[in-house]
């Protein structure tokens, strides 16, 4: 620190935009997400762990079911969704866990920002990590199980399911961040609530792989879309209550 430069520091007035509004809200959502991704690029703590775990799980499942099932497309839907859920939970708890460990969550909450903006920023970065995980897992599954999952309706269902998972997962990560044993608490809380997404995702994927007509599978897409919408709204309404004077 140097005394000379201090002099100028307080002389110049600092202006803050206080008009607020949705533009300011979105800027902060974006700032939180960009900050998370930037830190992740440096530290490679979250996404890389998820991806490596996901690939490992593909191999383990491949070994487990090899020669035991007549057609691998029979188990592929279940394997895909189990990997997304289990690899996902690995990264989700870090999103708020890292902030609580270093107490930077307090730094975030000190800023004039709605809690929901912090939540949506984290949601965006978690969503990115989950899609990245799927981007690595799908081709490897194509090779290992000789099953092409790159079909429009499978990918649509996967995207909707991932969105719902990231919504609830990010929310519960915030909820468990301060409790003891949050690493084990998060999956215990999260997985039973994700059962509808899991069932819909597995059934949809299996239906498409079996070559059933899409018209009979639309209800699964509807369930996923309604799930996403309702939990999006619920999280937006309730997230303020989480950090209500921690």
């Amino acid at each position, binding site marked *: 620190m140097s005394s000379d430069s201090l002099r100028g520091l307080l002389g110049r007035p600092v202006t803050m935009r206080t008009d607020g509004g949705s533009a300011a809200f979105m800027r902060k959502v974006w700032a939180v997400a960009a900050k998370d991704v930037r830190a992740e690029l440096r530290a490679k703590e979250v996404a890389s762990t998820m991806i490596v775990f996901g690939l490992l799980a593909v191999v383990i499942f491949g070994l487990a079911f090899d020669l035991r099932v007549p057609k691998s497309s029979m188990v592929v839907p279940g394997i895909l969704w189990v990997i997304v859920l289990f690899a996902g939970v690995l990264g989700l708890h870090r999103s708020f866990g890292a902030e609580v460990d270093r107490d930077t969550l307090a730094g975030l909450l000190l800023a004039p920002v709605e809690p929901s903006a912090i939540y949506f920023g984290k949601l965006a970065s978690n969503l990115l990590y989950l899609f990245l995980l799927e981007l690595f897992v799908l081709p490897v599954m194509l090779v290992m199980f000789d099953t092409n999952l790159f079909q429009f309706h499978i990918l649509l269902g996967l995207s909707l399911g991932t969105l719902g998972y990231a919504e609830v997962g990010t929310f519960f990560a915030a*909820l468990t961040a*301060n*409790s003891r044993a949050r690493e084990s608490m998060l999956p215990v809380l999260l997985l039973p609530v994700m*059962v509808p997404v899991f069932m819909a995702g597995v059934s949809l994927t299996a239906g498409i792989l079996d070559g059933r007509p899409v018209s009979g599978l639309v209800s699964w897409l509807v369930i996923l879309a309604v799930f996403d919408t*309702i939990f999006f709204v*619920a999280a937006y309404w309730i997230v303020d209550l989480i950090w209500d004077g921690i």
Partner: protein
Amino acid sequence: MATTTSLQSKRSDPWYGPLLTLDVLAGLAMVVAIWAGLLFAKDATNLAGDEQIAQRIFYFHMGCNITATLGFLLSVIGSVGYLVRRTLVWDRIAQTGVEVGTLFAFGIMITGSIWAKPTWNTYWTWDPRLTTATITILIYLAYMLFRNGMDNRHTRARFASIYALFAFISVPFTYYSARIFRSIHPIVFDGANADAQGSFSIGPSMGQTLIITITCFTILFLALFFHRWRQLSLEARIEDLKEELYQ
């Protein structure tokens, strides 16, 4: 000396008498329920052999079903109540609802499995109602674990209430997802499920028995609920007194 003090505390506790009466009533209610389910109700005429005998478990199954639902409804009411009012009375209602409700939900599972073996020839199937009930139990076990991991009473109440709300929203989704799967669970009061196996229609004595057992189980539920709720209230009172002593 010790007996006098305990006697005195019994006398000074205004709830001692009513609770004892409720306990006795609950015990009698269970005797009545067993009598009604096993002796009073007539045999189901469209069933035979083991299936006919197993059908009688339905009365207890329904008793557990109604009370478990009651517990979970109270937990949601308690959770919303806490988030709106921020007083721990509501939180205790939510916690008691979950705990007692989970107990009866296990009752549903056990009676259902025993009935399903002779009727469906399997203890377990991924029927929508079974799936939903199982997932609900898992959610509320998670709820209890989650509570356990937090020390501050108000933080615990707030976070548990938020989780209960989220979990409650997810239950219908679980039900509808599972329902699109094939269902073999008999829908006794609807009769619309053509694929159902082991159905039976409700005769006059069956209907009466059902009303009796459900009433009896509700009395048991009330007794358990009241005891647990009071226990939690007393625990909270002890906490308050300890805090005052520290002051």
